[in-house]
């Protein structure tokens, strides 16, 4: 979301040190504790804010956070204003693409949930070990794998992945496709190998950099 849109929606009195009001804002941090926040796009109510942050004045952070939640930001840190304890998570702004764009650019065949092609994709995760994906993938990652068992749908749901791309033109099991349709999980097929597909996705700008996200 653009900074200019946020300012208008929140009707905020802005004390800003940001030059570019068309900056894409990925997340907000409601914090007065600099030490708790590693790399954030914006601060709310922060003193001594670094130059690339904005401060929304005069409103208790928790109210701002609730309003942000209502306009679509659902991953942002929340600081309890009384105790100053960090009770949420931070996400640094990173490049996102719509799943639809990725499908078009990489020539993927969409098998299920084409109503979900407007999902934002934040990065990619390439692995065939389900327990590894459970442990290390992040929300809105596009999962690249050769696994076709219905379990992949469960994992995509649990981790809220943007979708699953099956490589080497493998056919997902019928049960997998049915489950994916039922749960609204996009499954796509590519003729590329995992290596080729990962490279191409990476080249589109989705670096899948672990440092982009700090998990709680």
């Amino acid at each position, binding site marked *: 979301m653009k900074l200019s849109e946020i300012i208008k929606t929140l009707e905020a009195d802005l004390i800003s040190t940001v030059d570019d009001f068309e900056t894409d804002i990925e997340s907000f941090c409601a914090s007065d504790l600099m030490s708790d926040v590693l790399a954030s796009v914006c601060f709310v109510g922060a003193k001594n804010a670094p130059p690339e942050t904005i401060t929304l004045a005069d409103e208790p952070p928790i109210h701002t956070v609730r309003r942000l939640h209502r306009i679509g930001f659902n991953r942002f840190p929340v600081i309890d204003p009384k105790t100053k304890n960090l009770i949420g998570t931070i996400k640094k702004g990173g490049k996102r693409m719509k799943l639809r764009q990725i499908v078009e650019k990489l020539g993927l065949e969409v098998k299920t949930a084409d109503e979900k092609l407007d999902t934002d994709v934040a990065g990619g995760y390439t692995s065939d070990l389900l*327990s590894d994906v459970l*442990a290390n993938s992040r929300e809105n990652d596009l999962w690249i794998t050769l696994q076709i*068992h*219905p*379990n992949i*749908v469960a*994992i995509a749901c649990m981790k809220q992945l943007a979708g699953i791309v099956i490589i080497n033109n493998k056919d997902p099991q019928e049960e997998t496709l049915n489950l994916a349709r039922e*749960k609204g999980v996009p499954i796509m097929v590519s003729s590329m190998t995992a290596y080729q597909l990962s490279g191409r996705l990476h080249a589109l700008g989705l670096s899948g950099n672990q440092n982009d996200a700090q998990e709680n």
Partner: protein
Amino acid sequence: MTLMEDLSLHILDIVENAVRAGGNNIKVNITEDRNADTMTVTIEDDGKGMDRQTLEKATDPFFTTTEGRQVGLGLSLLAQAAQQTGGSLEIDSKLAKGTKVSAVFNAGHPDMKPIGNLLDTISALTAANPRTRFVFDCKKGDYEYHFDSSKQD
């Protein structure tokens, strides 16, 4: 979340299901059949068992009887591990009698997972569940291992 690179972690997961089913005795058996080149893993308990409806859904990754979870992956992941070697999973269960999970693997298949560290699994289980009797039997070629937690003092 542990990486499930070997069978001992799958076994731990299923034995934890067995513990949750109540009951007093849990038996794990791992047997290699050299002629058929298969490995069979069975986990048997005398807990509360499952009715037919529950049994039918047991390997559904979205079915769980654990409160507060939306997925129950232990059995479906074990089933997948077996199927990937061309093997299979079967579950026998009777209400109030117990459950037996049998997974057959083709041991020579390239995607066959190694057994892993059973001793770690056994220590973890016996430490966490001192009132349950665990019996582990492992037979792989000339290697035989037998453990009975009721005989420890």
